[in-house]
């Protein structure tokens, strides 16, 4: 990768982050306040799509059951607050711990399988818990879900910060999601991340060079469950609500579509895919109830025309452009950019 390419990417990333920080002031002025919360929602779902991407894009395992870990994060928060009367942070912690724990249990079994079998067993696990959540209405509220009142996030003395302040809510979600993406970036660039990619590329070879493929896949699975769990917990805070319907396999499927359409195996691909589809939904659904039709058509068009996803397409285009510019190749590191 050439220097100018890296600079372009870095500049774009900084601009992107700056734009997100400016949202609570700029968006209400330009469009309306409603879109601030849409963008917050997009960030949450992007994190959910990223959990698919970590497994599929970097380890080569296509999970069709991420909604399970999302649901545990969500219910951990909701049940923590409404049943156990927990305050904000313990409830957040409960959601994350619950999703990581169930990911560990599911992963111990699931990562013994690969390919189609892995996709099927992940969806089976999530369906088991979906039906379970639907039937134990007394705990989960079933499809109707649980509504709860959100305790404040921070309170020192007379000052309290809570999600009832929309700007605070936005920045809390932004900070949490950004932190998770940063963690994921670090993991991908680390020795562990390189081992993930090696397994994705050629698992037999990976085993033969001495990588414990089962263990590494399990680690990735749990990490991915963590990302999904954080997104589920955030979504529970965001909606003050948890429902079994979010554990259905369609929710997992949408995240797979978002991640692959955006560009699996790229850090920001899921963000692009999620943004695209949620913006379409928000814009179209006010005029036309059949926005899913557009989602379906776009999913098919992208996999046919741009199988590496939108970010993949963009990267190829950038690479071609920079090759034409004939920038002399500089000494580069092992690092590959997001």
């Amino acid at each position: 990768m050439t220097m100018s390419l890296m600079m372009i990417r870095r500049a774009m990333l900084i601009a992107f982050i700056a734009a997100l920080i400016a949202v609570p002031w700029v968006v209400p002025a330009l469009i309306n306040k409603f879109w601030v919360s849409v963008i917050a929602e997009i960030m949450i779902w992007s994190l959910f799509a990223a959990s698919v991407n970590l497994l599929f894009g970097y380890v080569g395992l296509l999970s069709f059951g991420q909604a399970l870990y999302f649901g545990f994060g969500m219910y951990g928060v909701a049940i923590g607050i409404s049943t156990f009367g927990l305050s904000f942070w313990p409830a957040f912690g409960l959601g994350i711990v619950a999703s990581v724990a169930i990911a560990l249990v599911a992963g111990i079994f699931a990562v013994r399988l690969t390919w189609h079998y892995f996709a099927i067993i992940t969806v089976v696990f999530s369906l088991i818990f979906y039906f379970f959540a639907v039937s134990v209405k007394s705990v989960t509220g079933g499809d109707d879900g649980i509504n709860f009142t959100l305790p404040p996030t921070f309170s020192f003395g007379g000052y309290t910060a809570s999600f009832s302040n929309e700007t605070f809510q936005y920045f809390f979600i932004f900070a949490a999601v950004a932190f998770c993406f940063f963690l994921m970036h670090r993991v991908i660039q680390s020795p562990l991340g390189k081992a993930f990619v090696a397994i994705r590329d050629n698992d037999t070879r990976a085993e033969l060079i001495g990588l414990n493929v089962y263990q590494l896949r399990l680690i990735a699975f749990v990490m991915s469950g963590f990302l999904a769990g954080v997104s589920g917990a955030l979504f529970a805070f965001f909606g003050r609500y948890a429902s079994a319907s979010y554990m259905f396999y369609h929710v997992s499927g949408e995240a797979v579509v978002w991640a692959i359409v955006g560009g699996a195996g790229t850090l920001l691909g899921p963000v692009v895919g999620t943004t695209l589809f949620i913006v379409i939904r928000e814009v179209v659904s006010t005029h036309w109830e059949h926005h899913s039709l557009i989602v379906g058509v776009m999913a098919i068009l992208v996999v046919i025309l741009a199988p590496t996803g939108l970010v993949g397409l963009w990267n190829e285009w950038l690479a071609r452009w920079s090759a034409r510019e004939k920038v002399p190749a500089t000494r580069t590191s092992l690092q590959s950019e997001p």
Partner: protein
Amino acid sequence: MLDTLLLLALNGLIWGLIIALIALGLSIIFGLLDIINIAHGDFFMVGTVLAWFTLNLTGNFWVAFLIVPLIGFILGALIQRIVIQPIRNVAALSIVATFGLSLILQEVVRITFGATPRRILPPIQDTILLFGINYDVYRIFAAMIALVALAGFFLFLHRTKLGTWMRAVRHDRDTAIAMGVPAQHVYIFTFGIGFALAALGGVVAAPITTVEFRTGVDILPFCFMAVIIGGLGNLPGTAAAAVLLAVIEGIIQSFADPTVARISSLVLMSAVLLLRPQGLFKGLAK
């Protein structure tokens, strides 16, 4: 009590035969094209909806048994050519594509047919006394049709050139191609047959279930269970598993919540996936 149990088992058997039709389509698509077809439940749903349209346009439900599978075959062939063919080599993308397909089919049905669930009256209204209640004759008839279709499909696979080609491609794609089997046509045909079988299942089931754009979503996991528990590529096993599962679920429903029945099937399926990925019936049926 025994009567209730037998009744539920019979209901399960009938459903199982219909599911077997759908699951066979799923299994041949999976086996031949290496594709997890998320839209397969919707192929069934399209079948029920087309049956409804046929009845309303012609006033004759029986026509649907001919027309709907034919339309299904054409739709399936077109879908293979337009959507599946370009992404044949990337299994993961096929999941995304068929998921998109599923959304498209559901939305198109919502637009044309509407979101309201409807019912079709069985073309045979008679009942017979069975296990102490008046049982719909049509249900028995539905089971017969499904059985005939299953038998016809297996005859087709084993007695015709095209069927032999399909088995050859499933068994060893490269050798089959080297032997001169026109694999492209076989793929198109396979997808068409897969859709047609699901659509036929839809027609058969339409009078005993609701017609609505969501039915595919509910039936898909069940079909996958049959395919996995029966053993991937083991078509008789798939049919047997479909019947077995439906009967078991039917019986469990007699004393427990339907979701309990569903959860038990899913747990059984997980166990099969992890312990006997070749399916329950490996060695029993070839």
